[in-house]
């Protein structure tokens, strides 16, 4: 401020500046505090979630203990509950789903990164991604009304007549069972696994690919010797993330698995998973032990999916740029 400046200019500017400074003095820390609080909320929610689920299962845990995990009985009338058949159904349906979804996703990712003409690449990738956007209840609806009749009339009789000597394909065909559940889960896992696998494939340095070509490798040989070894952790991680999705899916599985408390070698027979048992029984559940047993199922499912998800992220993070994960 030079002395020559006339005081004719009213102090309006300075007043506004003062007010602005005061607002800033409040605004700055409040934004910081609000933003920090929001982050704390995210951490708090996950802790509270785990606490509530375990807390809810406490009365079932005190009654059945760890024997709950190995008991096959689920009888609301006698108040006897056990999770073994649901754990079995969960693991088997998800494992079969990943058996299909893993190779399929790798092949799709290869097509989209190496084979597809530039014009086709984007639209096909978008369509595969859109598969992930279809709500699970609609895939389940399609599963019940379109896929189940096809299963019982065409696919399962055909499998049975060819492979019936294997216990997996023994037994009479039925519209609801582990196999339809696994197929529905495959549909839901493929877009997730292939999207991550595709991004991992794109991070493979092109000079290594070109080096393989220069040595005279065919495209498949280049894939097998360059892309797959480099992308292996990413592929494994992506598959495990897909597995996590399959393990926790409740609705579409409930619609096609048949809801039976049984452990059966045949994939055609009705079964049930942890998630779908909770979904199908919660509304009708009454009584402390019954509801608490459903919480216990949720706790088992939570533990399994936490292990799977954390494991997947640890594997993928090794050697893969962080931006691929989300």
């Amino acid at each position: 401020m030079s002395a020559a400046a006339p005081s004719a200019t009213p102090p309006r500017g300075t007043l506004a500046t003062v007010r602005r400074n005061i607002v800033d003095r409040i605004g700055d820390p409040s934004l910081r505090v609000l933003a920090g609080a929001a982050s704390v909320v995210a951490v708090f929610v996950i802790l509270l979630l785990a606490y509530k689920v375990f807390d809810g299962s406490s009365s079932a845990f005190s009654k059945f203990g760890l024997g709950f995990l190995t008991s096959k009985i689920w009888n609301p009338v006698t108040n006897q509950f056990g999770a073994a058949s649901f754990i079995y159904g969960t693991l088997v349906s998800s494992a079969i789903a990943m058996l299909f979804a893993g190779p399929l996703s790798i092949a799709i990712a290869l097509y989209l990164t190496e084979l597809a003409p530039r014009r086709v690449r984007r639209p096909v990738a978008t369509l595969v991604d859109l598969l992930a956007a279809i709500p699970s209840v609609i895939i389940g609806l399609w599963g019940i009304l379109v896929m189940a009749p096809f299963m019982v009339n065409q696919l399962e009789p055909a499998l049975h007549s060819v492979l019936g000597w294997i216990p997996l394909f023994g037994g009479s065909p039925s519209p609801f069972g582990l196999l339809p559940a696994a197929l529905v889960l495959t549909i839901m896992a493929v877009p997730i696994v292939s999207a991550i696998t595709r991004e991992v494939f794109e991070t493979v340095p092109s000079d290594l690919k070109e080096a393989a070509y220069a040595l005279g490798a065919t495209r498949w040989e280049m894939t097998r010797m360059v892309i797959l070894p480099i992308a292996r952790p990413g592929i494994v991680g992506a598959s495990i993330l897909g597995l996590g999705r399959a393990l926790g899916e409740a609705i579409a599985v409930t619609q096609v698995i048949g809801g039976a408390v049984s452990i059966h070698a045949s994939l055609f027979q009705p079964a049930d998973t942890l998630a779908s048992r909770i979904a199908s029984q919660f509304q009708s559940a009454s009584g402390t032990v019954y509801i608490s047993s459903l919480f216990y199922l949720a706790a088992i499912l939570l533990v399994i999916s936490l292990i799977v998800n954390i494991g997947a992220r640890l594997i993928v993070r090794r050697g893969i740029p962080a931006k691929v994960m989300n």
Partner: protein
Amino acid sequence: MSATIESPNPPPKLFTTSARRKRVNRSMEVLSTLAAGLAVAVLVIVVGSVVIKGVSALNLDFLTETPAPFGAPGGGIANSIVGTFLLVAIASVIAVPIGLLIGIHASEFARPRVSNAVRFALDILSGVPTIVTGVFIFGLLVAGHVQSGYAGSVALAIIMLPIVARSAQEVLRLVPNSLREAAVALGVARWRMVLRVVLPTAAGGLITGAVLGVARVAGETAPLLLTSSIASNAVSWNPTQALSSIPVTIFTLSESPAPADHARGWAAALVLIVGVLALSVFARSLHERSRRRLRG
């Protein structure tokens, strides 16, 4: 992380019989193409089934009327449409601001270790099965009380939060630091800089994340089954009571033995799928545009 190209010494068997190598190569290419074709075919078959079977049962009455009494013909899903709208709207009001603030925290304030920890928590949260989220909210808000629209919305908000927050974190990180420095150099306070410079620059990407979150939870069934499913058939705008929703309605109709209910289920699925896919496509185009702008 080195590529394991075998040493050419002795010369690998691979590079000998050329015809066989070409055949293997060709069949692998065909298999990959078939896999991609299969995925697209499944999408077309599922969406096609919904469209073909849904259109025949869909009419204006279906959108504006409440469900017909059991066994009666006609009726609609107006109550479920209103319910889904309310549930998703309340969930967004909860999840979008919190998610945005988490993103701001990571890009403007937090030390890397803290923001990594938060990111880890969000990743875990997004890996929690939605039915478990439903059980959690049942235990927190419904047990000992009654189901309510608010409980359902909170469950949806928890599912939405990691989607919105993670995309906010990613997008805000893309905002060039030079813009922030320019603002600070002009003497702008930090919070003004965030609100007036950072957020508007990243607006497209932030909206994308929110829209994707909305598209995701609009189709969620499992958590609502436990928290907001025992609802009256009347159109209700009152979230203190359980609200019906399109996904739960589809679920119920799909379990019914009556063919008329199946037709209603397909029509409801058509309404839902059009909404969800439209949101997804919209988010996608927005995403492309904002990415191109940020990359300059």
